[in-house]
């Protein structure tokens, strides 16, 4: 790759970005050359998204300089991005979505050409994908949408893609598809393209990146060739006190009577932490939503709910954006202590203050708007909302999505303490490490339970085995 090193596609010098008083990026210099695959890591709020948006032209730098080798804009330089949130138009077909970002598609036959191009790109990145170019995007699964989005990013679109920024591209993909992507990224870089790969799965970073850049509080704190890092060194560089080994011993405790049993076979006993695992999008979230909806009512709300829900997709399922932190915490417990239908504001304030301290929500005042918090802290508010309620069953739909390791450790400890007091947790996680912390794990495949693992059987190997077993290798 040495022959490319003289030609950086983009060079950032002393770039700063301020949002009001918040310094999201505070002097970053970085150059990305052809053939580079940079692994970008850092906690929530370290400035990854800001950096990405500066490179792709979504934001303007407050200070410093961003230069491209071809043209003046990111678009002219062939910079493409795949964002964490899905950014296709759901009402259009795949081919029509390509048209949105592909101005060179013109004439009466643009549709035919668009179809050909998107098909070619999909075939190249994800062989055997089985997606039709004329399907409307909203009929696709989340994983398929993510695949389409990645394919559009790598598609020619008039100018060819030269630098592709992938922000957590594998979060919605299962292991097989993710490895196809990683293989494609390697091929793409070997052919002279460049990739910025952001992932919280350090294994992927080590596999795909030739250089790792660590961001912390708006600075680049470490930047070395991948082979110079160890997992431990990377975690240390991100500034984490947390232990590398997430497999903390499970404190054995007595379990109570069975409190959940669904027709599908999902079961849980009082005080148990039950994990739902398997490949992403195989029916876990639907099973949990169904469980929650069947055990709560859209017409009545009692003073003692049976089940509470912790959302992972905060924006869609959790946060009430106009409200304060306090109101967001208390919404599920309003009926407690209400007199004549009026809210007991004193007890509401008590609950919020109590949980702010217990779960460590970083804010001066619970009256601040919820949106003033970072994503991880918003997630803590959602945990507080659920745990503040006396409900004996807590349903969690991949709640650690986009949460940093520190918060995760806090929450793990809290879950264990609550379970010891007899609460039952049903926990869907896309990370196998988390499933390994549960008392019992149900592995899902194709919308059904394919294995129930307990005790010493809960290992990464067994979970993977159950998730993949019947599938042909792809």
């Amino acid at each position, binding site marked *: 790759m040495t022959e490319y090193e003289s030609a950086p596609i983009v060079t950032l010098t002393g770039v700063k970005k301020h949002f009001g008083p918040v310094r999201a990026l505070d002097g970053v210099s970085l150059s990305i050359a052809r053939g580079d695959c940079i692994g970008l890591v850092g906690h929530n709020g370290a400035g990854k998204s800001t950096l990405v948006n500066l490179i792709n032209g979504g934001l303007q730098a407050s200070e410093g300089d961003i230069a491209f080798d071809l043209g003046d804009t990111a678009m002219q330089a062939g910079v493409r991005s795949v964002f964490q949130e899905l950014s296709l138009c759901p009402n259009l077909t795949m081919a029509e979505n390509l048209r949105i*970002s592909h101005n060179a598609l013109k004439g009466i036959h643009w549709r035919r050409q668009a179809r050909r191009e998107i098909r070619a790109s999909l075939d190249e990145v994800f062989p055997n994908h089985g997606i039709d170019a004329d399907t409307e995007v909203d009929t696709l699964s989340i994983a398929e949408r993510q695949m389409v989005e990645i394919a559009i990013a790598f598609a020619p679109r008039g100018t060819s893609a030269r630098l592709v920024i992938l922000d957590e591209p594998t979060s919605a993909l299962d292991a097989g598809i993710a490895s196809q992507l990683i293989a494609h990224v390697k091929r793409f870089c070997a052919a002279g393209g460049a990739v910025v790969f952001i992932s919280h799965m350090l294994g992927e970073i080590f596999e795909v990146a030739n250089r790792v850049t660590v961001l912390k509080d708006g600075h680049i704190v470490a930047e070395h060739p991948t082979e110079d890092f160890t997992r431990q060194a990377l975690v240390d560089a991100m500034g984490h006190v947390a232990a590398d080994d997430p497999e903390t011993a499970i404190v054995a405790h007595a379990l109570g009577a069975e409190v959940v049993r669904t027709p599908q076979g999902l079961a849980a006993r009082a005080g148990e932490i039950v994990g739902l695992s398997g490949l992403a999008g195989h029916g876990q979230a639907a099973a949990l939503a169904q469980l929650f909806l069947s055990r709560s009512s859209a017409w009545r709300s009692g003073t003692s709910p049976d089940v509470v829900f912790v959302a992972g997709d905060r924006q869609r399922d959790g946060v009430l954006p106009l409200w304060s932190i306090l109101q967001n915490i208390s919404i599920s417990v309003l009926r407690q202590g209400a007199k004549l239908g009026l809210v007991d504001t004193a007890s509401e304030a008590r609950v919020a203050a109590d949980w702010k301290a217990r779960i460590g929500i970083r804010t001066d005042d619970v009256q601040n708007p919820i949106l003033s918090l970072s994503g991880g802290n918003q997630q803590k508010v959602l945990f507080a909302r659920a745990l503040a309620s006396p409900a004996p069953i807590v349903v969690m739909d991949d709640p650690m999505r986009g949460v940093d390791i520190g918060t995760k450790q806090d929450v793990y400890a809290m879950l264990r303490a609550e379970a010891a007091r007899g609460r039952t947790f049903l926990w869907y996680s896309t990370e196998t490490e988390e499933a390994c912390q549960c008392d019992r794990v149900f592995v899902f495949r194709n919308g059904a339970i394919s294995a129930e693992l307990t005790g010493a059987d809960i290992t990464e190997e067994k979970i993977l085995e159950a998730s993949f077993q019947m599938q042909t290798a792809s």
Partner: protein
Amino acid sequence: MNALSRYRILLPVVSLAVLLAATFWMQPRAMSYFGLNLLFNLAVPIALATIAQMMIIMVNDIDLSLGAFVSLVACITATYLLDTPALGLAMLVTLILGYAALGAMIHALELPAIVVTLGMSFVWGGLALFILPSPGGASPDWLRTLMTVKPPFAPMAVVASILIAILTHFLIIRSGIGTVLRGVGGNTRSVARAGWSVLKLKACAYGLAGFFGVLAGMALVGLTTSADANIALRYTLLSIAGVILGGGEFVGGKVSPVGAVIGALTLTLAASFLSFLRLSPDWQIGAQGAILILVLTARLIFSRKGGET
């Protein structure tokens, strides 16, 4: 094409066919060139207004001023366009540009379209009163001739509706710009990220709405031969109903021009249908409401069945 998107156009077609069959069954004489012409007499302006509303709904807004706007156009057509065609034409072009500017303003200032168009309905209505304080005016001869032309095989209203449906289908569904405009309704941010100016696109959608609104007003005058300031006020609600009846949805850029035209035809027919039933005219308005509910119930049943399989 998958099953779902096919349903979206199938249902409006079936509901129109059922209503038409019921009409023919009760009044076989309607099954003729003349009968059809009578049944669908006012369909063309309603279809055009429905297409105009569809342009706005396509970009996730709603237009509560359309009826007043069509009335204003009708007033201008019956006065200025008749007496001083150049001035009249200039006024109509200005109105279209005004609509585009309105769309740009709604987007730039992030205003709620429902309220701005609500305010505009007063403005258009006021201007119409200003131009034509009492009912009157007359249709320009060429317009009258155009609207009453008798093409072979099928009456004017039917032929014109088919033409409108085909043209707008190519404009909105097949063409590149139409695709991008629908993209604005589907996911505005991704369209903006791809380098499009959403401001211009919204102005374009509103401009198109203005254009079809102008056509609706002119067509109306061509049929009624006179105008008044309140002539088309009910078009606001009719056009919204027509878009939804035609399989459109309020958000997400899911619209169908062919469906919208069919929706408009269905509503037109619903009003004429009652006179065949010899029901008291008190129920004419109610019948439109009932048919709207019936068709949407059918849509629900179909989509549920579609979801099960």
